[in-house]
C-alpha cells in the first residue's frame, strides 16, 4: 500500500482538460496561417497571441509560451483593453465578450489578426476560427470571408478539417 500511495502522490497531472486541448488547437493554428507579405518586418520574430476577456481558465494560453511555429516564437499575453491591438498577430476572445463581439470585430476592421473564439455564434459574427464541441470532441469552424477581409491565408490542410461558414 505504501508503494502504491507513494507513487500516486508523486504523480503529476496528466489529464487533458478542455482548455488544455483548446490551447493546443490554437497553438497549432499558428502553424497554418500565412500573414500578408511584410507582416513580420523589422526583425519581428514572434507570433503574438493576445488573450482578451474571460470565461476560460486563466493560465490556459501560457502552456505553449516560447514554443516555435513557422520558425517564429509563439508568445502569449493578456490584453486588458483593445488599444494595444496592433501588437497582436492572433487574438483569442473569451465567451465573456459574447454581447460585445460585433463591436470588437468592428474595432479590428481589416487588421491582419487571426481571431479565435470558443463561443456559439462567434463564427457567424465574424470571428475567423471558432472552436466548438461535438461528440465530446473539440472541433472548429472557419469563417472564410472574415479571413479574406483580414488578408490572411489559411492552409488547405486547416480548411479540410474545419466546418466552413460562408
Amino acid at each position, binding site marked *: *500500500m505504501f*508503494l*502504491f500511495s507513494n*507513487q*500516486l502522490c*508523486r*504523480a*503529476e*497531472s*496528466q*489529464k*487533458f*482538460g*478542455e482548455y*488544455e*486541448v483548446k490551447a*493546443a*488547437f490554437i*497553438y*497549432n493554428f499558428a502553424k*497554418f496561417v500565412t500573414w500578408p507579405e511584410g507582416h513580420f518586418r523589422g526583425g519581428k520574430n514572434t507570433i503574438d497571441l493576445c488573450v482578451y476577456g*474571460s*470565461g*476560460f*481558465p*486563466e493560465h490556459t494560453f501560457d*502552456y*505553449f509560451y516560447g*514554443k516555435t511555429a513557422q520558425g517564429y516564437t509563439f508568445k502569449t499575453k493578456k490584453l486588458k483593453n483593445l488599444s494595444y491591438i496592433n501588437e497582436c498577430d492572433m487574438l483569442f476572445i473569451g*465567451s*465573456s465578450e*459574447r*454581447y460585445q463581439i460585433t463591436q470588437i470585430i468592428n474595432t479590428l476592421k481589416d487588421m491582419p489578426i487571426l481571431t479565435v473564439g470558443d463561443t*456559439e*455564434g462567434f463564427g*457567424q459574427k465574424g470571428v475567423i476560427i471558432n472552436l466548438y*464541441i461535438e461528440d*465530446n*470532441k*473539440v*472541433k472548429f469552424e472557419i469563417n472564410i470571408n472574415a479571413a479574406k477581409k483580414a488578408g490572411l491565408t489559411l492552409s488547405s*490542410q*486547416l480548411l479540410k*478539417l474545419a466546418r466552413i461558414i460562408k
Partner: protein
Amino acid sequence: MGVRQNIFNKSLKKAILLSCFSVFLTFFIYHFCYGWEKEEDPLSKLAGLKLEDLMKLEVETIYSASKFIQKTTEAPSYVSIITSSDIKRYGYRTLADIIKSLSGFYISHDRNYHYLGVRGFSPPGDYNTRVLLLIDGHRINDNIYNTAYIGNEFILDVDLIERVEVIRGPSSSIYGSNAFFGIINVITKKGKDINKMEISGEAGSFDTYKQRLTFGKEFNKDMDILLSASFFKSHGQSLYYKEFDNPAQNNGWADGVDGEKYNSFFLNTRYLDFNLQGGFITREKIIPTAPWGTEFNSPLTNTTDTYGYLNLKFKKDINKDTSFMSRLFYNYYYYDGNYLINKPPFVRVKDQTWGKSWGTELQYNRRVFEKHLITSGFEYQDNFLQKQRNYDESSYVSYLNDRRNSYQWGIFLQDEFTIFDNLILNAGIRHDYFKFFHGNTSPRAALIYKPLEKTALKFLYGEAFRVPNMYELYYNDGNITQKTNPDLDPEKIKTYEIVLEQYYKNFQLSLSGFYYKVKNLITLTTDVSDGLLVYRNIDEVEARGIEFEVYAKWQYNIETKINYTFQQATDKITGRLLVNSPKHLVKSNLFIPIIKDKLSGGFGFEYSGSRKTLGGRYAGGAFITNLNILSQNILKGLEISGTIYNILDKKYGFPASGEHIQQVIEQDGRCFRLKLTYSF
C-alpha cells in the same frame, strides 16, 4: 450484528490485501517493461499532436439533464457518465453492471429480473418503475409494468452503448411520469463508431455463451447505418435453497432450472436529418426460486419477455439560436409467464401481458434575448393495447382477462437563464394528463453558481410523480396470491439537493446532500385480513443522505474513482428503515494501463451495506471485487478480455420480494468471462 461486522472486516481486509497485491504486481510489470525514468511532460505531448489527433480527444459534455447539450458543471442535476471505454475496461456485461458501479445506486436480483435502487428506495415488488430509462431519448419503460429493464432483458447489447448518462433526482418537469428518482439515458453507437464489421464471442461460467455480429458504416456524411444481432445462452447453475431442504423437494437443490436465453437485434440509421432506430429482444428465463407457490425445481416455471420499438426522428438546427425535433414512435411488449403451481393436482398457470403504443413528440429550442435558452415540448402517447391475462392452462379457467387502452399527453417549458456569466437559473415546468387520472404539474428549479472557473455549486428543487401502472391497478390471479387495487393514487415526490462540483488539478470532486419526501408511495403489501398481496399507497416516506465522489487521473494514465453514499430512507410514520435499503454504499474503480494502450487492468470494488428484509431480518452487506484484463491492438482489430467477477467468492444475497418464501436470494459467487472481439 457482531458476527456480520466481523465477516465484513475480514472480507474487507482480504479485498484490500488482494487489491494491493494486484496493484503492486501491475506496477512491477510496468516498470519492468518501461524502467523507472520519468515520462515526458503531458502538455508537451499535447503540443506534439497534430490537429487530426487533437480532434479525437474527448471532453465531457452532457445532454440528458435539460434535453440539449451542456457542460456537466452547468447541468441542473448531479450527473454521472459511463462511456463505451469504461464498459470495456471493467468488463460490464449488462446495464445493471454499469448502474451498480455508480455512486448512490444499488441493484437487487431475484434470479429473473434485476431491480435498481437509488436514494435508498427499492421496495420489494417495485419493477423499476421509479427510474426512467431512455435510449437516445426514447422511453423504454413498457406500458404495463412501466419497468426499466436493466439485466439481460435490456433491449440493447451493452457493446452498442456509446455512453450512459445517469441523472439523479426528479426530472418529471421534462420527462413526465416515472422520472421520479432519476433518468438513465443510453446513447447508442452510430455506424461511424464501428465503421466495419465486428464479430464478438464470449464464454463464461455456468455454460454461458454470447455472440454478436455488427455492421456499421458512414456513407459520405449523409447516411449512416448500424445493424447488429446478439445471441445469448446460459445453462445457469445448481442452486441450493434451505427453505426447500426436504427429500420431497430434491433436498433444496434447484438443478438445471436457472437457464436463460436471449436474441436481440438493433438498427440505427441516419439519412440527412432523419434518424430511424429500431430494437427488438426476446428473452427467456427459467425461474429457480419457486415464487408464488410454484413447484420447486421445475423448468416449467419460466418467463419470456419480448420488447420492440421503432423510433423515427427528425432533427434540424434552423439557425444557430433555434433547433427543432420531432419524432414518431411505436412500442411493442409481450410477456409470457408459465407457472407450475404446487397444489396437487398440478395447475399450469399462464400469466400474459400485451402492451402496444404509438406516440409522437415535438421539441423546440430557441435562444431569446441572448441570455435565455428556452426548451419547449409536447408529447403524446396512445396506449392502444394494455392487456393482462391469467388463466389455468389445464382447465382453461380464467382468473384475469383485463383489456384496456389509455392515452397520456404532456407539455413542458424550460428556461435556462444566464443571469450573470457565473450564475445560471434553470427552471422548468411540465403538465401531464392521463386518461385514468387527473392532470399533474411538476416544477423544477436549479440555481447554478460558478464562483470560480473550476467550481460549481448547484441548488436544486424538484417535484415528480408516478402514476400507478396497469399491473399495480388491475392485476390479480383469481385472488389466489394477489388482488387488485383500482383506487391507487399517483405517488409524488419533493426533493431538495445541494451539489458541489470542484475540479482541482487532476482531481474531480463532487459532494451532494439530499432530502427526498415521498407521498403516497405505492408498495406491495400483504393484506392481513386475507393474506393476499396488494399494492397500496403507503402514506409518507423520506430519505436523506450525502454522496461524495473523487475521481483522479494520474501519471501513466492511471485512473481512480471512489465514492461513498450514506442514505437513510425511512417510513415517516413508524420511523423505521425501509426494506431493501442499504445505509452505506461504497464504489471504487481503478484502471491501470499495463502496456501503453495494448494491455490494461480494470478493478471494480463495490460495497453495499446490509439491507432489511421483508421479514425484518437483515441481508448482510457484501464487498464484491471484480477484475478485468483487457488487451487491444496486439493483433490488428483483435480485442481480448478476461474478467473475474466476485474474486473473493463472497456469499451474499438480496432481500426477496413478497412472492418468495426465501427472505434472501443468494447471488453469484466467483465467476469468469472470456471475450474476443474482431473487427475487419
